């Protein structure tokens, strides 16, 4: 964010210089062209940087799920957070409209599943985790469980659980 503000300040200063030079003498036409080139260059770099950030945020939605951890949110600007929320909403609307009545969660099952239940081992302390039929499982480090696939997928992708192949 700070880099952005710096760049914006530089850009505005450049622009002030340009308009001042232009209103003055016309034989400095080379200088004006040169400055214009620099301005365009700065603009291109800024745009590419911002666009790349957006692409990464979009990737985050697919990897992390709907809620971002606080450390990441801290690094995003307000516009980026808003963009993320709007993307989330569009994605949710699209998923609802695609399959059946309840919709299809496209973020599940990214790799084709082989069975309904999978074996997982817990990598970090997470606390309690409730499954559909009401039983709660306490997730402590290195404990192994046999759980339904769709519940764990999110946690595995976040790195809390680890999928074990038999």
């Amino acid at each position, binding site marked *: 964010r700070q880099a952005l503000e710096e760049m914006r300040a530089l850009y505005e200063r450049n622009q002030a210089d340009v308009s001042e030079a232009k209103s003055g003498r016309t*034989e*400095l036409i*080379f*200088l004006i*062209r*040169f400055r*214009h*080139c*620099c301005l*365009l*260059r700065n603009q*291109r*770099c800024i*745009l*590419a940087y911002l*666009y*790349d950030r957006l*692409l*990464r945020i*979009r*990737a*985050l939605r*697919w*990897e*992390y799920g709907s809620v971002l*951890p606080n*450390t*990441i949110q801290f690094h995003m600007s307000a516009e980026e957070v808003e963009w993320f929320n709007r993307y989330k909403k569009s994605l949710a609307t699209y998923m609802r409209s695609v399959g059946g009545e309840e919709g299809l969660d496209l973020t599940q099952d*990214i*790799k*084709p*599943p*082989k069975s309904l239940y*999978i074996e997982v081992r817990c990598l970090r302390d997470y606390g309690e985790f409730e499954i559909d039929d009401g039983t709660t499982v306490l997730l402590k480090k290195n404990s192994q469980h046999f759980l339904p696939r769709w519940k*764990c*997928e999110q946690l*595995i*992708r*976040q*790195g809390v659980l*680890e*999928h074990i*192949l038999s």
Partner: protein
Amino acid sequence: MSEAYFPVGPGLGLEENFLSLDDILMSQEKLPGRAESTLPRLAFALGQGAGTGDSIPEGSNLEIPLWLAKGLHDSKRRIISVELPKIYKEAWRTVFSADANVVDLHKMGPYYYGFGSQLLNFVNPENPEIAQTILQTFISRFRRIMDSSQNAYNEDTSALVARLDELERALFRAGQKGLNDFQCWEKGQASQITASSLVQNYGKRKFTDMDG
């Protein structure tokens, strides 16, 4: 990066992709050129001359980055005239036609193909030959890249990759990724859900944030 992040790739041919980070880095490379007429007050910006009032005399040699050369080159070439960097000149062209596999393209400027394509934008009588040379170099080097990327599994590839320029490295990485994925599938790991590399990277970085 993980499978969900798709960065903007470099452009092909004469045009660059505006938002591609690779293209931006590539157009930062310098070209030799000559000033066609006196350029007032530019001396400080281009690194020659003491104060802000100096002008660059006509005919002096300059090294300018590509983006600047493209911008200042338009309209009847009054400002800058561009010369070819030595790697695209006659001497090197014969080296490439003799045997292209030997040349260390990374040392010669890591964007040989991309930069060469951009050079074709400037009017120059040698353009068709430059284009031919670039194409031929690529064809002769391609086979070795493909071979090495498909057969180097779990080895240290830095010796192979050191002599390739950026485009070739991207190809090499794509080949390696395909190989790794195939091996994964053969071992039965394709159905294993894994934490994405994004998550792992963020995990590492989080600790530095909390400490700093």
